[in-house]
């Protein structure tokens, strides 16, 4: 049921003659593979591959991340993962574009009180400013005791809401630092 084989070799070589060969191709079906086609290969061949996990839902599909010289080339399912066996859903399959999304933020944006637009801010400067404000908010909202006089040792000046795509290690540091600062309004998507 498969198609028949090739034409005679001599015919094949005739096709390589300029003009004639091209004319022969016109409308006649047989045609030649271009240089590009002949060199075709999976562009990830031989590339660095990193094992990761999909960042969307909680199924936990394994991903293979192909990179070349610090550039992301491809993300696909990890066939060895017993969870997804190489498959991905549309969101997982779009992960490369999530990373390379057109509006991807790479600089701190700052909006001053009453401001009508973003300003750019150096990262270290932003970190200093945030730390200052956080400390001030802690002090501002500090309570040794509540209105009954019961010890609470806390601040209500600051709050946190985390998404559920944060790593466990990140959540651990969030809870650890904020609790040490006395903040209790530490929440997560898991509540929502």
């Amino acid at each position, binding site marked *: 049921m498969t*198609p028949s084989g*090739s034409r005679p070799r001599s015919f094949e070589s005739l096709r390589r003659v300029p003009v004639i060969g091209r004319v022969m191709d016109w409308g006649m*079906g047989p045609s030649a593979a271009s240089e590009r086609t002949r060199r075709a290969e*999976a562009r990830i061949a031989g590339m660095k591959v990193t094992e990761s996990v999909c960042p969307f839902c909680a199924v936990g599909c394994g991903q293979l991340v192909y990179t070349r010289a610090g550039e992301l080339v*491809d993300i696909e399912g990890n066939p060895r993962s017993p969870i997804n066996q*190489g498959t*991905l859903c549309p969101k*997982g399959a779009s992960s490369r*574009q999530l990373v390379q999304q057109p509006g991807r933020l790479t600089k701190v944006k700052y909006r001053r009180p009453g401001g009508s637009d973003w300003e750019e801010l150096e990262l270290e400067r932003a970190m200093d400013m945030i730390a200052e404000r956080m400390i001030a908010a802690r002090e501002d909202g500090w309570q040794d005791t509540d209105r009954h006089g019961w010890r609470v040792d806390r601040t209500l000046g600051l709050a946190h809401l985390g998404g559920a795509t944060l790593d466990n290690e990140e959540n651990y540091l969030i809870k650890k630092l904020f609790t040490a600062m006395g903040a209790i309004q530490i929440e997560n998507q898991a509540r929502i």
Partner: protein
Amino acid sequence: MSTGSAHTEIAIHRSGAQRMGFFTDTTVCIGCKACEVACKQWNDLPADGSVPGKGASYDYTGDLSASTWRHVRFVELLEPSPQLREEAQRALESGGGNKFPAIPASGAIDLVDAAQAGDGAADVAEAVSKMGDWVFMSDVCKHCTNAGCLDACPTGALIRTEHQTVVLQPDVCNGCGYCVPACPFGVVDRDPQDGRAGKCTLCYDRLEDGLEPACAKSCPTDSIQFGPHEELVEIASRRVARLHERGIEGAYLYGAGDEPDEQLAGGLGAFFLLTEPPELYGLPAQADSPVQENVVPATLAAVGAGLLASAGAVIAFVAAGRLSRRRPVRESW
């Protein structure tokens, strides 16, 4: 000149190469569109916008195009028609299920014609029983044995590879567009930017490194299977038999397993397991000649599919249902 039965020549030879293809089993497709995205991701195809005005459907892709090489079609058997339901309710009144609240009577019943033309109430009853159906199908280039596009291509941009797949070489294509109408399935399209044609390559580049095509790899439920064509046909035939055993008698293969002289386009490298008449999926019932003698234009197929989106189209649906009941298995197609 080529004829209806001629096989186009293989442009690339590799020892041990065999025909590779896709078997797309619509009965396990969940309509997730992973294949669409995985294809775009691998082939670096841009998001090319959405087709608006699809009503209740989740299908905003519309059709295959130069930058969309997989398309999950949502066959909307759930399209609303209160009149249909009311009529059906009456037809089914002996059933007594009465799961829907009574719908206010309406003078115009758009199914009268359909009901009168056929077996009457029974057809409507079946139509209603099928209203629980919402069929998904991932469409793709069929990689025909007799590929109209390849025959029409004047530049040699379209070639048949060692896997007997039909590949369009963008570095050769001059954008003449002859291939576009030559495809009986409406698969090939030209890029509105550079004018060159584009379509599924069955991931020719991945195959060269022994990787399976991106769509098949991503498919969460293995609705898209990739492999040696011969093996796939065997797998698919067994699958049809199993479905028949389970009472899904309408299951049939589209584009494979037919008698040689009845093969669609000489047989499809990418074939499908369907449960509804092909027109419902926007597929032509016939596509058997590379010289386009006998082709149902893709546009017509599209019109057919579009019709189904309107209430009146339920007539077509009921009619098609009859057709499929009379000739339930693949031989008809």
